[in-house]
């Protein structure tokens, strides 16, 4: 997995909608891809474009919807997506995270997240941070139509802040933090426990042999 810096700053783009499901983040027709890359141009496809997209379509020639925040040029450099409650609920499609990453999003801040989506973020080096409603409201009310907010993250100390507006300590499971900071190969890491897994399997074959059907 790609390592991420301990400390970094990013520019926000706020998506003012609760329960944004992964069907919206990347619609079903793009799940036909057998690759992880190239999904960025189709991120939020139905909200972003006037027409319906499909894999292979040249999105640079498509008409953008004026009222969708990601199409606002003021946020063209945004890499911190700020959302409301239950962001990424619904389908388990990791394509949603691949699309966000391909688009250039490195951090997602929300009131809460869909469970599977939240896991998928960390597996791909995207930092997902749950923050208090109070500070989320501060971000939403201070990001104007024309200017993003510059948000800083100190991952080691689990701090998220804006120089003038707020500072908050956020929670992150120690294993997720370690994986992000060290850029660990998750599978390689687990395979260090090969002996424990084998021991478990031996016990399983003895105690609940009906589980193993080989």
């Amino acid at each position: 997995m790609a390592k991420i810096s301990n400390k970094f700053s990013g520019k926000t783009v706020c998506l003012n909608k609760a329960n944004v499901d992964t069907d919206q983040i990347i619609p079903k027709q793009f799940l036909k891809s057998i690759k992880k890359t190239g999904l960025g141009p189709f991120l939020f496809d139905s909200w972003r474009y006037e027409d319906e997209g499909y894999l292979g379509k040249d999105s640079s020639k498509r008409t953008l919807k004026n009222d969708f925040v990601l199409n606002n040029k003021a946020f063209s450099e945004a890499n911190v997506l700020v959302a409301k409650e239950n962001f990424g609920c619904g389908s388990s499609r990791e394509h949603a995270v691949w699309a966000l990453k391909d688009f250039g999003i490195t951090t997602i801040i929300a009131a809460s997240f869909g469970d599977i989506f939240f896991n998928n973020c960390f597996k791909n080096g995207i930092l997902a941070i749950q923050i208090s409603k109070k500070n989320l409201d501060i971000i939403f009310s201070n990001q104007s139509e024309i200017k993003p907010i510059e948000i800083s993250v100190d991952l080691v100390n689990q701090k998220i802040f804006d120089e003038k507006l707020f500072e908050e300590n956020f929670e992150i499971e120690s294993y997720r933090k370690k994986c992000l900071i060290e850029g660990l190969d998750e599978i390689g890491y687990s395979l260090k426990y090969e002996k424990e897994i084998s021991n478990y399997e031996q016990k399983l074959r003895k105690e609940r042999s009906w589980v193993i059907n080989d």
Partner: protein
Amino acid sequence: MAKRTLYDKIWDDHYVTTRDDGSDLMYVDRHLVHEVTSPQAFEGLRQNNLKPRRVSSILATPDHNVPTTSRDINLDGIKDPISKLQVITLDENCNEFGITQFKLDDSRQGIVHVIGPEQGLTLPGMTIVCGDSHTSTHGAFGSLAMGIGTSEVEHVLATQCLVTKKQKNMLININGVIEDGVTAKDITMFIIGKIGTAGGTGHVIEYGGEAIRALSMEGRMTLCNMAIEAGARAGMVAPDEKTFAYVKDRPFAPKGELFEDAVEYWKSLPSDEGAKFDEIFNFRSEDILPQVTWGTSPEMVGSIEDTIPHSSDKNIISALNYMGLKPGTMIKDIELDQIFIGSCTNSRIEDLRVASEILKNNKISKRIKRAIVVPGSGLVKKQAEAEGLDEIFIEAGFEWRDPGCSMCLGMNPDQLNELERCASTSNRNFEGRQGYKGRTHLVSPAMAALASLEGRFSDIRDL
């Protein structure tokens, strides 16, 4: 010994070790695989020179992309070359790694969450994963079944374990006897309406109470299927005699003495009297009426007696705008264009029996442009045909299709046209889910069948 919940017990029996970063490895008994969320995982294995650890734990089948009209010509029936490549890629991956697959031309092929239980691969007390959020379905057997992402699919293939942390326990009791015409689908939608789509986040839900115990195994699968729509990591129902009877003699289920051993273990699984739940909800059966969603999230749901709510909530206004509905409109006045009976929520034999009972000697409304019924598996289809249900559907004006996910998510050609409105037995009413700009109302099979006759929603209890 401490009193434990069903979830606690399965967790304890699948705990392998704690990694030095503080996360736990949970052993995975069964891994179900389909064509959409697996190609990148198999590719990852190849890149790292790894192999699946225990191929006997895996069953694969193509279901999301497959056409429902041309099974006789097998792969040639997949017109979209990108869909076809994905199905062929699953074939190649299964061949390369020696994984059992029910291919497109196999009579046992079907929706992965229908065939797991049907084949006896889903057993009580197991941990089951699949790269699909509706894996929660299998919790109906008292197993711990979770949807996972593709990176996790790769991890499970390579290690037979999931990196995870224990969730909280939630208990939802449905007390009393549910009214005739009200189904498991209505119960599960009602719960989501009450606790919301994030109500179960961070929890594993155990469903209990008299109404849950009274449900058939098919009903329990429908119930647990939508636990994910309540935000939960998994949904479960404690196994009982009904569960054991369902499992017995299925192709992959243990036989003879092994089965007896298993039953003995399964009987130890239900939550101990006095076990601690972090959160408990109690609902009364008499409050649960036939449900219909009116918005673009499963929590935007009401009963057949309701009207579309007036609200200043920006999310509701935007949903009603998408759905083309006005506040104050009666649910019963909503007119429909299409009917879809199918999906991992409601495509089992019991669902088809209930729907066909309503359609018998009737014709669908002239308003309805298309009504399709998509059995959940080849074996469900065969069983329905043996009972003559196909003829009832066809005579009523339905199209009788081949198994697959179909119009639940429209990855295949079964989709709504723009602005068309559908009564659907599936699980998600998200924007564009059933087709670009399509409008979905989630209902039970009985309510969908009745709506097909009337061209609008009606109360199944009036029948």
